[in-house]
């Protein structure tokens, strides 16, 4: 027991460092800064590069890394977050999410994607308690963390700038009125938070002995959960949250094994958001007054598209592409169609209902696995498995997300991210091996193995999806859902049960995500959990935001550009993610309505 507790505290110490930075930035800007997550990975890689490649001593490399992370943090704020400050926090949050993907992948391009052995600076296992070995290294890290925390709290309590930071986070408008330069305070907070993130990153690398560019998001999400658990905006809360989560996680691993880690962490997140959204120490309704996406993204009038465009588009997709394109183009086209289907379904949730769910990989994975199991184990035909997996995805995703619809503001985005992650983690727990030999669809006994056949099937599915989405939009139901998205308070005041309609919109989106997942599974014929990442969720979000979050056909445009063009231009995966990120940042900044919508 004691050894588990110590292991928990050692990890918790790292989470606490990261969580303090997240809480600090949230306090002064009301933005969840995903970019900071990247500093966990980046800090570790920069330190590895300095020590191993440049031969710097650790004690020189560490401050250098912190300065560099601080610089990147400042840059993020100046270039991306600050310009969006006058919009909703959600816009800034999305952009920082994109920045984090860009940083992670730029670091992967620069340092390679491999896990690198991180040099041992101090002994790591010269002490022993029960089954746990730990070393001077761990104690030094704990010591440094404590020194940093004490310095931080003294600075915030007695420092002139520290006081300004607190004043800004308690009442930004009043801070401005007493002459506090709020922009400057925000810059300082970003610098501090990013340096703390870098420090935490180096500590993680020292703790686990390896460094990897893409480790940032995972650790960052845990640190974020810690900050939420403690109460976003509360620094003491962040420290407590970090240690509590570290210990919970250690005991979880002790009893259920390492695979349960993510499930525990995100279960904690979801429970906190539902039971006590303000966290242990935060003020309870932190950002409840914030409107949802409907009033920002997708605002403005869509361009009028002449009626003749539709039949022409259909002819190009159904006749010209198959005639002109070879198998490669058709395979790529199939991907475009599948993501367009998923995206078009998602516009009902993201656009009309105004809930920017960040975890669509979850329902997609459910659809893919359902379809794979229904065809390989139950031996149902593809044509039955396809809609059934959509239904299963809708039902399971609805049940799992049912508690979160009362959650307010952009917490709901984070909660959906949590639900998505839990879904994939559970699948990984149940089917660690992946599923092989998923059959091709067949036509009265003849397997349709050609890319052309599969392309046409998926085109049919997309057309049906678009028609259904269009009908829903124009129906009474669609208008009620849109009322919830554009002004939830007004909708509730008019007797609309906003929660239920958000849940319904999400269920419809999850159905199409599940259908898309099924199509993906039968195209790949092999699936495993590594396909359904946070990145896939980001891709879906980017696809709908690019075209116009409210427009089902906007998702088709988004999919053509982000999937089709990227593939045909032979962009490497890292480069593609960087492009996704840039597209997301630029669209949110300059055309928040999407490319097919006039700026209002």
């Amino acid at each position, binding site marked *: 027991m004691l050894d588990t507790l110590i292991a928990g505290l050692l990890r918790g110490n790292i989470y606490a460092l990261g969580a303090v930075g997240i809480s600090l930035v949230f306090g002064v800007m009301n933005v969840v800064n995903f970019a900071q997550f990247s500093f966990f990975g980046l800090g570790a890689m920069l330190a590895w590069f300095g020590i191993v490649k440049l031969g710097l001593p650790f004690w020189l490399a560490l401050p250098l890394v912190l300065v560099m992370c601080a610089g990147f943090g400042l840059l993020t704020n100046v270039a991306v977050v600050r310009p969006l400050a006058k919009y909703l926090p959600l816009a800034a949050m999305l952009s920082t999410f994109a920045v984090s993907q860009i940083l992670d992948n730029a670091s992967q391009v620069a340092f390679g994607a491999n896990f690198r052995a991180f040099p041992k600076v101090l002994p790591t296992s010269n002490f022993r308690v029960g089954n746990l070995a730990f070393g001077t290294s761990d104690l030094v890290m704990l010591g440094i963390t404590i020194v940093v925390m004490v310095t931080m709290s003294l600075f915030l309590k007695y420092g002139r700038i520290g*006081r*300004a930071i607190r004043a800004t986070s*308690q009442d930004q*408008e009043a801070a401005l*009125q*007493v*002459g*506090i*330069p709020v922009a400057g305070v925000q810059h300082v907070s970003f610098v501090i938070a990013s340096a703390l993130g870098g420090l935490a990153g180096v500590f993680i690398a020292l703790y686990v002995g390896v460094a990897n560019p893409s480790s940032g998001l995972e650790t960052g999400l845990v640190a974020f959960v810690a900050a939420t658990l403690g109460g976003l905006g509360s620094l003491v809360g962040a420290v407590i949250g970090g240690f509590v989560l570290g210990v919970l996680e250690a005991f979880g691993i002790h009893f259920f094994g390492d695979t349960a880690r993510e499930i525990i962490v995100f279960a904690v997140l979801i429970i906190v958001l539902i039971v006590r959204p303000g966290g242990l120490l935060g003020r309870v309704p932190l950002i409840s007054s914030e409107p949802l996406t409907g009033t920002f993204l997708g605002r403005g009038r869509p361009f009028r598209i002449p009626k003749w465009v539709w039949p022409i588009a259909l002819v190009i997709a159904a006749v010209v592409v198959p005639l002109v394109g070879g198998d490669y183009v058709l395979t790529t086209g199939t991907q475009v169609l599948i993501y367009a289907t998923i995206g078009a379904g998602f516009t009902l949730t993201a656009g009309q209902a105004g809930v920017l769910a960040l975890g669509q990989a979850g329902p997609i994975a459910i659809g893919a696995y359902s379809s794979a199991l229904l065809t390989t184990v139950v031996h149902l035909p593809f044509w039955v498995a396809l809609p059934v997996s959509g239904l299963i995805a809708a039902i399971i995703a609805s049940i799992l997300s049912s508690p979160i619809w009362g959650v307010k503001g952009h917490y709901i985005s984070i909660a959906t991210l949590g639900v998505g992650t839990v879904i994939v983690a559970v699948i990984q727990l149940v089917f660690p091996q992946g599923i092989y030999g998923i059959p091709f669809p067949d036509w009265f006994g003849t397997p349709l193995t050609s890319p052309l056949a599969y392309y046409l099937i998926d085109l049919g599915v997309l057309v049906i999806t678009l028609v259904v989405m269009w009908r829903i939009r124009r129906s009474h139901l669609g208008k009620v859902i849109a009322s919830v998205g554009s002004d939830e308070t007004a909708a509730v005041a008019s007797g609309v049960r906003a929660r239920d309609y958000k849940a319904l919109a999400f269920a419809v989106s999850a159905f199409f995500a599940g259908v898309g997942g099924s199509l993906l599974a039968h195209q790949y014929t092999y699936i495993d959990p590594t396909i359904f990442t946070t990145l896939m969720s980001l891709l879906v979000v980017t696809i709908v935001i690019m075209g116009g979050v409210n427009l089902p056909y906007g998702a088709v445009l988004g999919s053509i550009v982000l999937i089709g063009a990227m593939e045909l231009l032979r962009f490497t995966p890292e480069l593609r993610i960087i492009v996704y990120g840039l597209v997301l940042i630029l669209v949110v900044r300059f055309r928040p309505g999407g490319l097919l919508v006039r700026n209002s």
Partner: protein
Amino acid sequence: MSALLELDDVHVYYGPFHALRGNTLTVGEGEIVSLLGGNASGKSTTMKTILGLVKPKGGTVRFDGRDVTHASTRQRVVAGIASVPEARRVFPQMTVDENLLAGAFTRKDRAGIQEDLERIREHFPRLAERRRQEAGTLSGGEQQMLAFGRALMSRPRLICMDEPTMGLSPKLVDQVLDEIARINRELGVAVLLVEQQAELALSIASRGYVLASGEIVLQGGSRELLDDPEIQVAYLGKATDTAAESDTTA
């Protein structure tokens, strides 16, 4: 009288909405001036323009003879404009002393800050008693005193007050008005008092302006405004036919 603050033909837009339509007003050194008007008449926008929170599309704002139209809020605070925001807006999780020090953020003279801290504690004994208490736990009246104290900490020559009596009991309202008059009298600070309750504001102000739909529709000395039949109807809640009657009974 030399004008401390001058707004000259100020126009402010929120998107297409023309919120201030060419307003001109002045506040003299050591004067109390009230700015009256109903909801959405442009009172708060005027105050925000003076503080630099909203930038005018046209016109100039001068303070102490200097053009501050394009100055930041911070520069204006340094120049001597302080504010008491609507609904007080003290920093709830900071102590009384920390709130006061936050008010002195733009100053660097430690000795002077300490001196002013003492002066304000003397002026508001309640705040001295509660110096280590979190501001969020103070009563409404005490928070109002703290908001005054915080504004005074920047050594202002003008304090803009946005509805300082809002949400206070009638007894406290009188206290707050006395306090504003006392600050003005004892410390020689000019006050621009934004109020919905015209009668109260004019009772301590020397002059007043009346805003409606973003335009100044009336101005003059307090007595004059109080006697103006239009004001009595529109802002003092007296019906036209009973106005004369109530005058005779009063």
